[in-house]
């Protein structure tokens, strides 16, 4: 039997031991950490760098998200950031020489109330002014694009229309991480797994090293990319972040033949649904209300999400839940990320992406690498500074970002 199996494919990256020192260390080997390391090496020539991951590569939120990619955010700062990401999503498969199946099947955001309708139309207008492809669909057009949606007006939350972004879609999340990891490895970046950060070494207010479960490593600069655990790292470094970590759950059904041609999101009834390339129906919920680091949430959240899904998609009533899971998302009060400098010299932070970090992976990496390499933010992430909570220049995407965060 054994001789009939194909040979094991080449590993995409190595597992080096940590060197005594690096020019920069990225804490967190998820999508954002790997993308940051990639752009540090590619755009800024910094190859003597390491990515430290406490578990296995891309085993946190990168493995747990529902893979939706879109850029139809309301405010200028967000639209610029996420549209930059979307353009990178379009070119990255070629650049990384890895087809991670970015499928631009469109994303629909349903409107169920008159308030939704007005807010959605406003967002379509704002998107168009920012060069983001967006259109308004009436219920008939919604049905044409997604025939399995129930658009009758006798359901609890009838579909009164939807915004639609044709260039949006989904990608294979694991493969995105592996694509970045392989390129990082080729460029000389050390990817160090099973290496948990336990503290930082500081000279006055300047960070000079990272204490880990595999020893202390000296470094010129540190970039934090730890999503739900950002607060824990910040506390070790001696500063606070305006982050609350919550469980966020998702689930898949068993495999089905293709029935769902696009991605449907509903802010109002709190469910988002796509069908994975392999055939599972992939559904995400809203966050659990309480703070939690447990990578699991309460079942009533799933129940609520399934009830909404079955009403919107009556044929799903015959599907079964195959698997549910949770991640830990780092939410901010204005539902926008924090990418920039910190009160600690030479330490930088990329966090607060909340429930929408996957879609932002390329531009998080691109702008965070720029910030780490030059010490100052890129124009795209300058508005997303930590200082905005002090100045009041918030980027309030709560309820404006087409889906609740």
């Amino acid at each position, binding site marked *: 039997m054994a001789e009939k199996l194909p040979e094991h494919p080449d590993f995409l990256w190595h597992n080096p031991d940590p060197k005594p020192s690096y020019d920069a260390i990225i804490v967190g080997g998820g999508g954002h950490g790997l993308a940051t390391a990639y752009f540090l090496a590619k755009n800024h020539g910094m190859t003597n760098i390491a990515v430290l991951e406490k578990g296995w590569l891309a085993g946190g939120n990168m493995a747990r998200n529902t893979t939706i990619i879109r850029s139809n955010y309301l405010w200028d700062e967000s639209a610029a950031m996420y549209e930059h990401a979307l353009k990178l999503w379009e070119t990255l498969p070629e650049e990384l020489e890895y087809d991670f199946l970015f499928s631009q099947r469109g994303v629909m955001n349903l409107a169920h109330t008159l308030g939704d309708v007005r807010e959605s139309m406003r967002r379509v207008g704002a998107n168009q002014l920012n060069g983001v492809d967006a259109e308004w669909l009436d219920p008939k057009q919604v049905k044409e694009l997604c025939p399995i949606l129930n658009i009758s007006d006798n359901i609890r939350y009838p579909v009164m229309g939807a915004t639609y972004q044709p260039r949006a879609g989904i990608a294979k999340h694991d493969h995105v991480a592996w694509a970045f990891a392989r390129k990082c490895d080729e460029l000389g970046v050390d990817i160090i797994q099973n290496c948990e950060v336990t503290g930082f070494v500081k000279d006055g207010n300047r960070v000079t090293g990272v204490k880990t479960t595999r020893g202390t490593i000296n470094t010129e600069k540190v970039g934090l990319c730890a999503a739900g*655990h950002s*607060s*824990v790292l910040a506390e070790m470094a001696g500063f*606070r*972040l*305006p*982050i*609350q*970590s919550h469980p966020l759950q998702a689930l898949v059904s068993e495999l089905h033949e293709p029935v769902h041609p696009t991605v449907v999101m509903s802010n109002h009834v709190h469910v988002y649904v796509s069908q994975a390339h392999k055939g599972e129906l992939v559904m995400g919920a809203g966050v659990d*209300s*309480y*703070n*939690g*680091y*447990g990578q699991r949430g*309460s*079942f*009533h959240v799933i129940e609520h999400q399934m009830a909404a899904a079955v009403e919107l998609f009556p044929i799903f009533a015959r599907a079964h839940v195959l698997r549910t899971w949770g991640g830990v998302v780092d939410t*901010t*009060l204005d539902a926008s990320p924090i990418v920039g400098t910190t009160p600690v010299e030479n330490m930088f932070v990329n966090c607060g992406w909340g429930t929408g970090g996957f879609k932002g992976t390329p531009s998080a990496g691109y702008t965070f690498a720029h910030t780490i390499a030059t010490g100052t933010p890129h124009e795209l992430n300058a508005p997303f500074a930590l200082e905005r*909570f*002090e*100045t*009041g220049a918030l980027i309030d995407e709560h309820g404006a970002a087409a889906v609740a965060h």
Partner: protein
Amino acid sequence: MLLISCPNCGSRDETEFHYGGQAHVPYPENPDELTDRQWAEFLFYRDNTKGSFAERWLHSTGCRQWFNMLRDTVTYDIQAIYPMGAPRPVPDAGEPADFGTASLAPDSTTTGTTGPSVASTDLGPAEPAATAPKGAMK
């Protein structure tokens, strides 16, 4: 699903409650003297503890009273339930907790058989839970 022992109503499902975030965050005593940095701390910064965390809950579809809870944010175990305004209790490692559970406990009774949990705790001069709103900003 958390099973939460409301101090007034007894053991109820999590779906009857609303979450109120970190407990013991007082409104600034001299708001007009605060710097922008201090205002930012009050408005936007809350502890995000990994481990034992003191937080507020509201029994919104029951007695509609606020109370405080000490809960582990990793295991979700409820370690103590105590009135608004009372100091944060030190979790007792010896006694098993009787304030609720993070498991899928079959007993999600709405009759409140567990009884008021605060009565069984030794929290010192705890005010009666029914006066909870008094300390709602604490």
